Protein backbone atom coordinates (compact mmCIF):
# COMPACT_ATOMS: atom_id res chain seq x y z
CA UNK A 1 0.00 0.00 0.00
CA UNK A 2 1.37 3.35 -0.99
CA UNK A 3 -0.38 5.91 1.21
CA UNK A 4 -0.58 9.66 0.71
CA UNK A 5 2.23 11.49 -1.06
CA UNK A 6 3.40 14.45 1.01
CA UNK A 7 6.03 15.88 -1.31
CA UNK A 8 8.17 14.91 -4.27
CA UNK A 9 11.34 15.80 -6.13
CA UNK A 10 12.67 14.70 -9.50
CA UNK A 11 16.38 14.08 -10.11
CA UNK A 12 17.80 13.34 -13.58
CA UNK A 13 19.94 10.23 -14.03
CA UNK A 14 21.91 10.94 -17.20
CA UNK A 15 25.57 10.82 -16.22
CA UNK A 16 28.10 9.53 -13.73
CA UNK A 17 27.90 12.79 -11.83
CA UNK A 18 24.12 12.41 -11.61
CA UNK A 19 24.58 9.16 -9.70
CA UNK A 20 26.52 11.11 -7.08
CA UNK A 21 23.77 13.75 -7.11
CA UNK A 22 21.14 11.03 -6.58
CA UNK A 23 23.04 9.85 -3.49
CA UNK A 24 23.27 13.39 -2.13
CA UNK A 25 19.60 14.21 -2.72
CA UNK A 26 18.38 10.93 -1.23
CA UNK A 27 20.71 11.46 1.73
CA UNK A 28 19.23 14.93 2.30
CA UNK A 29 15.70 13.50 2.25
CA UNK A 30 16.27 10.58 4.61
CA UNK A 31 18.23 12.82 6.91
CA UNK A 32 15.34 15.27 7.03
CA UNK A 33 12.92 12.40 7.66
CA UNK A 34 15.12 11.33 10.58
CA UNK A 35 15.76 7.75 9.55
CA UNK A 36 18.34 6.00 11.73
CA UNK A 37 21.92 6.14 10.44
CA UNK A 38 21.86 2.48 9.39
CA UNK A 39 18.55 2.94 7.55
CA UNK A 40 19.87 6.10 5.88
CA UNK A 41 22.92 4.21 4.69
CA UNK A 42 20.78 1.36 3.35
CA UNK A 43 18.46 3.69 1.46
CA UNK A 44 21.27 5.78 -0.05
CA UNK A 45 23.13 2.62 -1.07
CA UNK A 46 20.02 1.18 -2.74
CA UNK A 47 19.52 4.50 -4.55
CA UNK A 48 23.11 4.39 -5.76
CA UNK A 49 22.71 0.82 -7.08
CA UNK A 50 19.45 1.58 -8.84
CA UNK A 51 20.71 4.86 -10.30
CA UNK A 52 23.67 3.03 -11.81
CA UNK A 53 21.29 0.43 -13.25
CA UNK A 54 19.15 3.16 -14.80
CA UNK A 55 22.26 4.72 -16.30
CA UNK A 56 23.95 1.55 -17.54
CA UNK A 57 21.07 -0.66 -18.59
CA UNK A 58 18.30 1.88 -19.12
CA UNK A 59 20.55 4.33 -21.00
CA UNK A 60 19.60 7.07 -18.56
CA UNK A 61 16.33 8.21 -17.05
CA UNK A 62 15.18 9.89 -13.89
CA UNK A 63 14.46 9.38 -10.22
CA UNK A 64 11.33 10.59 -8.47
CA UNK A 65 11.68 10.81 -4.69
CA UNK A 66 8.50 11.03 -2.60
CA UNK A 67 7.70 11.21 1.06
CA UNK A 68 4.75 8.96 1.89
CA UNK A 69 2.37 8.88 4.79
CA UNK A 70 0.45 5.70 5.49
CA UNK A 71 -1.49 6.06 8.70
CA UNK A 72 1.19 6.90 11.22
CA UNK A 73 4.06 5.55 9.21
CA UNK A 74 6.20 7.79 7.10
CA UNK A 75 8.19 6.34 4.28
CA UNK A 76 10.41 7.28 1.38
CA UNK A 77 9.60 6.09 -2.11
CA UNK A 78 12.18 6.00 -4.89
CA UNK A 79 10.97 5.53 -8.45
CA UNK A 80 13.63 5.07 -11.13
CA UNK A 81 12.31 5.15 -14.67
CA UNK A 82 13.96 4.89 -18.06
CA UNK A 83 12.98 4.39 -21.72
CA UNK A 84 15.73 1.86 -22.27
CA UNK A 85 15.70 -1.67 -23.65
CA UNK A 86 13.77 -3.15 -20.71
CA UNK A 87 14.50 -6.37 -18.82
CA UNK A 88 13.58 -9.55 -20.74
CA UNK A 89 13.60 -11.81 -17.68
CA UNK A 90 12.91 -10.04 -14.39
CA UNK A 91 13.29 -13.17 -12.26
CA UNK A 92 16.73 -13.78 -13.70
CA UNK A 93 17.69 -10.14 -13.22
CA UNK A 94 16.75 -10.43 -9.55
CA UNK A 95 19.08 -13.38 -9.02
CA UNK A 96 22.23 -12.68 -6.98
CA UNK A 97 25.27 -12.59 -9.17
CA UNK A 98 23.44 -12.24 -12.48
CA UNK A 99 25.01 -9.44 -14.45
CA UNK A 100 25.04 -8.05 -17.95
CA UNK A 101 26.97 -4.91 -17.09
CA UNK A 102 30.12 -4.09 -15.21
CA UNK A 103 28.74 -4.60 -11.71
CA UNK A 104 28.72 -7.62 -9.46
CA UNK A 105 25.13 -8.50 -10.27
CA UNK A 106 23.92 -7.29 -6.91
CA UNK A 107 22.23 -4.09 -8.09
CA UNK A 108 18.62 -5.24 -8.24
CA UNK A 109 18.69 -8.17 -5.83
CA UNK A 110 20.83 -6.30 -3.31
CA UNK A 111 18.79 -3.12 -3.30
CA UNK A 112 15.64 -5.21 -2.95
CA UNK A 113 17.06 -6.50 0.33
CA UNK A 114 17.84 -2.96 1.47
CA UNK A 115 14.26 -1.69 1.00
CA UNK A 116 10.90 -2.81 2.44
CA UNK A 117 8.88 -2.86 -0.77
CA UNK A 118 10.19 -3.38 -4.26
CA UNK A 119 8.38 -3.46 -7.61
CA UNK A 120 9.64 -3.73 -11.19
CA UNK A 121 7.60 -2.85 -14.25
CA UNK A 122 9.35 -3.49 -17.49
CA UNK A 123 8.59 -3.90 -21.14
CA UNK A 124 11.16 -4.91 -23.72
CA UNK A 125 12.16 -1.93 -25.88
CA UNK A 126 9.88 0.39 -23.91
CA UNK A 127 11.72 0.86 -20.64
CA UNK A 128 11.83 -0.08 -17.00
CA UNK A 129 10.41 1.43 -13.82
CA UNK A 130 11.78 0.28 -10.49
CA UNK A 131 9.81 1.50 -7.52
CA UNK A 132 10.79 0.88 -3.93
CA UNK A 133 9.79 2.06 -0.47
CA UNK A 134 11.39 2.03 2.92
CA UNK A 135 9.12 2.73 5.90
CA UNK A 136 10.31 4.39 9.06
Amino acid sequence: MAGTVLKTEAVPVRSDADVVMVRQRVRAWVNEMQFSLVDQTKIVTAASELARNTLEHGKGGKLDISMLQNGYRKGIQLVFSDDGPGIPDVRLALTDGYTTGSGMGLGLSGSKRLMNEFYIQTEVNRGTTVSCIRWK
Partner: protein
Amino acid sequence: MDRIPILRMGPFLLVTIQVDMHDKLALTLQDDLTSRISDVGARGVLIDISSLEIVDSFIGRTLANIASMSRVLDAETVVVGMQPAVAITLVELGMSLPGIRTALNVELGMEYLRQNTIVEGSGDGWDGSED
Protein backbone atom coordinates in the same frame (compact mmCIF):
# COMPACT_ATOMS: atom_id res chain seq x y z
CA MET B 1 39.98 15.72 -13.77
CA ASP B 2 40.29 15.25 -10.03
CA ARG B 3 42.28 12.45 -8.48
CA ILE B 4 42.58 10.89 -5.07
CA PRO B 5 46.06 11.54 -3.66
CA ILE B 6 48.30 8.57 -2.86
CA LEU B 7 50.82 9.07 -0.07
CA ARG B 8 53.97 7.01 0.26
CA MET B 9 55.01 6.01 3.75
CA GLY B 10 58.17 3.97 3.48
CA PRO B 11 57.32 0.65 1.87
CA PHE B 12 53.61 1.33 2.10
CA LEU B 13 51.12 3.48 0.24
CA LEU B 14 48.29 5.30 2.00
CA VAL B 15 45.10 6.42 0.31
CA THR B 16 42.45 8.37 2.18
CA ILE B 17 39.16 8.52 0.36
CA GLN B 18 37.31 11.60 1.51
CA VAL B 19 35.00 12.43 -1.36
CA ASP B 20 31.76 10.91 -2.53
CA MET B 21 33.39 9.01 -5.40
CA HIS B 22 31.79 8.80 -8.78
CA ASP B 23 32.54 5.65 -10.73
CA LYS B 24 35.23 7.11 -12.99
CA LEU B 25 37.13 8.49 -10.03
CA ALA B 26 37.14 5.01 -8.48
CA LEU B 27 38.53 3.54 -11.69
CA THR B 28 41.18 6.26 -11.89
CA LEU B 29 42.21 5.40 -8.34
CA GLN B 30 42.51 1.75 -9.33
CA ASP B 31 44.81 2.67 -12.25
CA ASP B 32 46.89 5.17 -10.28
CA LEU B 33 47.33 2.81 -7.36
CA THR B 34 48.45 -0.21 -9.37
CA SER B 35 50.99 1.77 -11.36
CA ARG B 36 52.25 3.41 -8.19
CA ILE B 37 52.67 0.03 -6.46
CA SER B 38 54.83 -1.23 -9.27
CA ASP B 39 56.74 2.09 -9.61
CA VAL B 40 57.88 2.20 -6.01
CA GLY B 41 57.77 -1.53 -5.31
CA ALA B 42 55.38 -1.01 -2.44
CA ARG B 43 54.75 -3.93 -0.11
CA GLY B 44 51.48 -2.79 1.32
CA VAL B 45 48.54 -0.49 0.61
CA LEU B 46 46.30 1.13 3.21
CA ILE B 47 42.95 2.45 2.02
CA ASP B 48 41.25 4.58 4.63
CA ILE B 49 37.51 4.73 4.01
CA SER B 50 36.45 6.09 7.41
CA SER B 51 34.93 9.20 5.78
CA LEU B 52 32.90 7.22 3.27
CA GLU B 53 29.20 7.34 4.08
CA ILE B 54 28.31 4.56 1.69
CA VAL B 55 30.05 1.77 -0.16
CA ASP B 56 27.89 0.40 -2.92
CA SER B 57 28.61 -2.66 -5.05
CA PHE B 58 30.70 -0.67 -7.52
CA ILE B 59 33.00 0.81 -4.91
CA GLY B 60 33.07 -2.57 -3.16
CA ARG B 61 34.12 -4.25 -6.37
CA THR B 62 36.78 -1.60 -6.99
CA LEU B 63 38.22 -2.23 -3.53
CA ALA B 64 38.21 -5.98 -4.17
CA ASN B 65 39.91 -5.43 -7.54
CA ILE B 66 42.59 -3.23 -6.02
CA ALA B 67 43.25 -5.92 -3.41
CA SER B 68 43.57 -8.67 -6.01
CA MET B 69 45.71 -6.58 -8.37
CA SER B 70 48.07 -5.49 -5.63
CA ARG B 71 48.39 -9.08 -4.48
CA VAL B 72 49.57 -9.99 -7.97
CA LEU B 73 52.06 -7.15 -7.66
CA ASP B 74 53.17 -8.60 -4.29
CA ALA B 75 51.65 -5.95 -2.09
CA GLU B 76 49.00 -6.52 0.52
CA THR B 77 45.96 -4.25 0.74
CA VAL B 78 44.27 -3.35 4.01
CA VAL B 79 40.97 -1.46 3.97
CA VAL B 80 40.62 0.49 7.19
CA GLY B 81 37.96 2.43 9.07
CA MET B 82 34.73 1.13 7.56
CA GLN B 83 31.79 2.61 9.47
CA PRO B 84 29.34 0.22 11.19
CA ALA B 85 26.35 1.40 9.13
CA VAL B 86 28.36 0.92 5.93
CA ALA B 87 29.42 -2.57 7.00
CA ILE B 88 25.87 -3.62 7.88
CA THR B 89 24.61 -2.31 4.54
CA LEU B 90 27.33 -4.08 2.56
CA VAL B 91 26.50 -7.39 4.24
CA GLU B 92 22.79 -6.86 3.56
CA LEU B 93 23.61 -6.01 -0.03
CA GLY B 94 25.30 -9.39 -0.30
CA MET B 95 28.94 -8.31 -0.40
CA SER B 96 31.22 -9.69 2.26
CA LEU B 97 34.43 -8.84 0.36
CA PRO B 98 36.10 -12.14 1.30
CA GLY B 99 39.49 -11.37 -0.23
CA ILE B 100 40.01 -8.11 1.59
CA ARG B 101 42.04 -7.53 4.76
CA THR B 102 40.49 -5.00 7.10
CA ALA B 103 41.50 -3.06 10.18
CA LEU B 104 39.72 -0.67 12.51
CA ASN B 105 41.95 2.31 11.77
CA VAL B 106 45.13 3.41 10.00
CA GLU B 107 47.25 2.71 13.06
CA LEU B 108 46.11 -0.90 13.40
CA GLY B 109 46.29 -1.39 9.65
CA MET B 110 49.87 -0.14 9.61
CA GLU B 111 50.72 -2.42 12.53
CA TYR B 112 49.31 -5.37 10.59
CA LEU B 113 51.34 -4.51 7.49
CA ARG B 114 54.56 -4.09 9.48
CA GLN B 115 54.09 -7.50 11.07
CA ASN B 116 53.00 -9.36 7.99
CA THR B 117 55.05 -8.05 5.12
CA ILE B 118 58.70 -8.84 4.76
CA VAL B 119 60.48 -5.70 3.85
CA GLU B 120 63.73 -6.70 2.22
CA GLY B 121 66.83 -5.27 3.84
CA SER B 122 64.71 -3.41 6.31
CA GLY B 123 66.62 -0.49 7.69
CA ASP B 124 68.38 0.57 4.52
CA GLY B 125 66.52 3.49 3.14
CA TRP B 126 62.97 2.38 3.69
CA ASP B 127 62.26 3.58 7.18
CA GLY B 128 60.69 6.99 7.36
CA SER B 129 61.66 8.04 3.85
CA GLU B 130 58.99 10.11 2.10
CA ASP B 131 58.87 10.94 -1.52
